[in-house]
C-alpha cells in the first residue's frame, strides 16, 4: 500500500524527470522522512542510481532519513545566532527534551534540529517551530516554546499556500493605514479596527493575510452577530455598498493602497471576503 503511494508521488513527476529533488521533497512532505523503500523505488522508476539519490538525500538538511516527530523545532546555529548564544539555547532544548540535536523524542512528538542561518539574523537567536518563528530566544523561553510546540502551533501555512498573502489596507475616509505594526498575527502586522455591537465598543485585530481567518478581539463577539466597523484613527464607519453574497449581512470596505478595495463580511463567523482590484495588477 505504501509502495503504491510512493509510486503515485513519483508518477506525478514523470512528465519531467530530472526533478529528483522535487520527488524527494514530495515524499518528505508526505511521510516527514525518506523511507529506504521509497528511495529504492525512486531509483528504480527514474533510472537515477541509488548512490546519487542517497547522496542528494544526505546532502540537504531538508531531507531526513529517519522518521521525524510530529513537531519540528529548528534552532538556528548560524554565525549571527551563534554569537548571540544560540548554543546555550540548543543545550537547554537538549536538556529539557532529553535528546540531542538531530534526534526525536521517544514519544515521537518532537524532533530537534539545528540549522545554519534562517535569514533573520538581526532577530537572533531564532527558533522555528513547525514554520512559526520565535525571535530573540534565550534559555528562559525554551520551556514555553516546548509547551507551545507540544500543544501544536495553530497557524495557516503561509509559505506553502499561494492563495494566502499579506495585504495592506487603509481607511477609505482618512486614508490612514489600518496596519498595526505593534501587534502581530500569523507573524505579520495585524489590521486594527474598532467595532461596536450591542452596547459594546472594542478593538479587533485581523490577520493581514488574505485567506487567513485569525482574529484577536478585546471582547468576544458572539458568533453570528453583525458588528459595525470603525476606523481607529478618524472613527468614521467603514461601511460598504454591497451585501455579503453568502449571508446577506452588509460588507464593510477598506482601501488597498495602490488601487483596490477589500470587502469583509460584517457578520462574526461568516468567512466571506473579497478582493476588488480596479485593474490593479498583482
Amino acid at each position, binding site marked *: 500500500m505504501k509502495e503504491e503511494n510512493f509510486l503515485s508521488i513519483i508518477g506525478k513527476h514523470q512528465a519531467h524527470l530530472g526533478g529528483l529533488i522535487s520527488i524527494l521533497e514530495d515524499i518528505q512532505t508526505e511521510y516527514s522522512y525518506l523511507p*529506504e523503500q521509497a*528511495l529504492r523505488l525512486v531509483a528504480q522508476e527514474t533510472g537515477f*542510481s*541509488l*548512490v*546519487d*539519490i*542517497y*547522496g542528494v538525500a*544526505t*546532502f540537504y538538511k531538508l531531507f531526513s532519513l529517519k522518521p521525524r516527530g510530529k513537531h519540528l523545532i529548528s534552532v538556528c546555529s548560524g554565525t549571527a545566532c551563534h554569537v548571540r548564544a544560540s548554543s546555550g539555547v540548543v543545550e537547554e532544548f537538549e536538556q529539557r527534551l532529553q535528546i540531542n540535536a538531530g534526534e526525536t523524542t521517544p514519544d515521537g512528538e518532537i524532533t530537534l534540529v539545528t540549522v545554519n542561518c534562517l535569514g533573520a539574523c538581526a532577530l537572533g537567536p531564532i527558533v522555528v517551530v513547525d514554520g512559526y518563528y520565535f525571535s530573540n530566544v534565550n534559555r528562559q523561553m525554551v520551556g514555553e516554546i516546548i509547551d507551545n510546540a507540544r500543544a501544536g502551533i495553530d497557524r495557516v501555512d503561509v509559505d506553502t499556500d499561494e492563495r494566502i498573502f499579506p495585504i495592506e489596507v487603509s481607511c477609505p475616509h482618512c486614508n490612514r493605514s489600518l496596519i498595526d505594526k505593534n501587534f502581530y498575527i500569523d507573524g505579520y502586522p495585524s489590521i486594527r479596527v474598532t467595532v461596536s455591537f450591542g452596547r459594546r465598543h472594542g478593538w479587533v485585530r485581523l490577520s493581514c493575510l488574505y485567506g487567513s481567518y485569525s482574529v484577536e478581539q478585546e471582547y468576544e463577539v458572539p458568533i453570528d452577530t453583525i458588528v459595525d466597523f470603525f476606523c481607529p484613527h478618524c472613527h468614521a464607519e467603514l461601511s460598504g455598498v454591497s451585501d455579503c453574497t453568502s449571508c446577506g449581512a452588509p460588507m464593510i470596505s477598506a482601501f488597498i493602497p495602490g488601487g483596490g478595495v477589500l470587502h469583509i463580511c460584517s457578520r462574526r463567523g461568516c468567512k466571506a471576503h473579497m478582493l476588488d482590484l480596479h485593474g490593479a495588477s498583482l
Partner: protein
Amino acid sequence: MINLIINGLPVSVEEGATLLEAARFLGFPIPTLCYIDGLSPYGACRLCVVEIGEGPKAKLVTACTYPAEEGLKVRTASSRVIKARKMILELLLASCPQSKTIQDLAAAHGVRRQRFRQEYEDCILCGLCVRMCEEQMMAKAIGFRGRGQNRSVGTPFDIQSDICRLCGGCMYICPACQLRCTYTEPEKAVCGGCENLSPPCLEKEQFDDMMCYMDPCVACEITKD
C-alpha cells in the same frame, strides 16, 4: 589548436586539453593525487596547483581541471606554487598520515614537518574510488554521502550494495585507505571482500566481464594451495 606558454615554452594543444596534459606533454612534472589517466578529472586534492596569469592577477588553479586557454601563461614551479604544494601535502599528512602514497609524495617534495593537529582519517575524499566504480567498473555501488564535515564515501544506507561485484577496484585505487581492506565490520564495509572471503572470481561464471584488482588476492592464494 590552442597556443599557450608554460614556464616560458610555447606549446599548442588541442582544444579541451587541460593544463596538466599540456605541461606533461612538455615534460614538466606536476604531482597529482586525485588524477589518474582513464578517470575523469575531479580536482579534489589540489596537489596539482599551478600559477596562471601575471602580476597581481596571477592565481593558483588546479592543472588537472583547468582547460588550456589561448595565450595563457602558466608557471608550474614558481615559489608560490611550491609553497602551496607543500602546504597541501602537510595538510594531507595531517589528515591521513598512515597513507604510503601521501608519505611518499611528502618526502619527494621535501615536506619535513607537519604542524597541524593529527587526525587519522581513512579517507581524504579524493573521489578516486567513486569514479573508479562508476567509470571503469560501470557499477556505481559507492558514492559520496552527506556534506561538509560529515561527507563520506560508502554505499547507500551503509549496507553492502547489491550492485557491488566485489571487484576490489576501489581498494586498488585508494591512496589512503588500506584500512578498508581490513574492515572490522564486514556488513558495513565498502567491499569487505577479504573479510567475507568471497572474492568474485570464485564464482567466475556469474561475471564473465569481470576485472579483478585484488592484490594480493585472497582467492588466488587459496586456489594456489
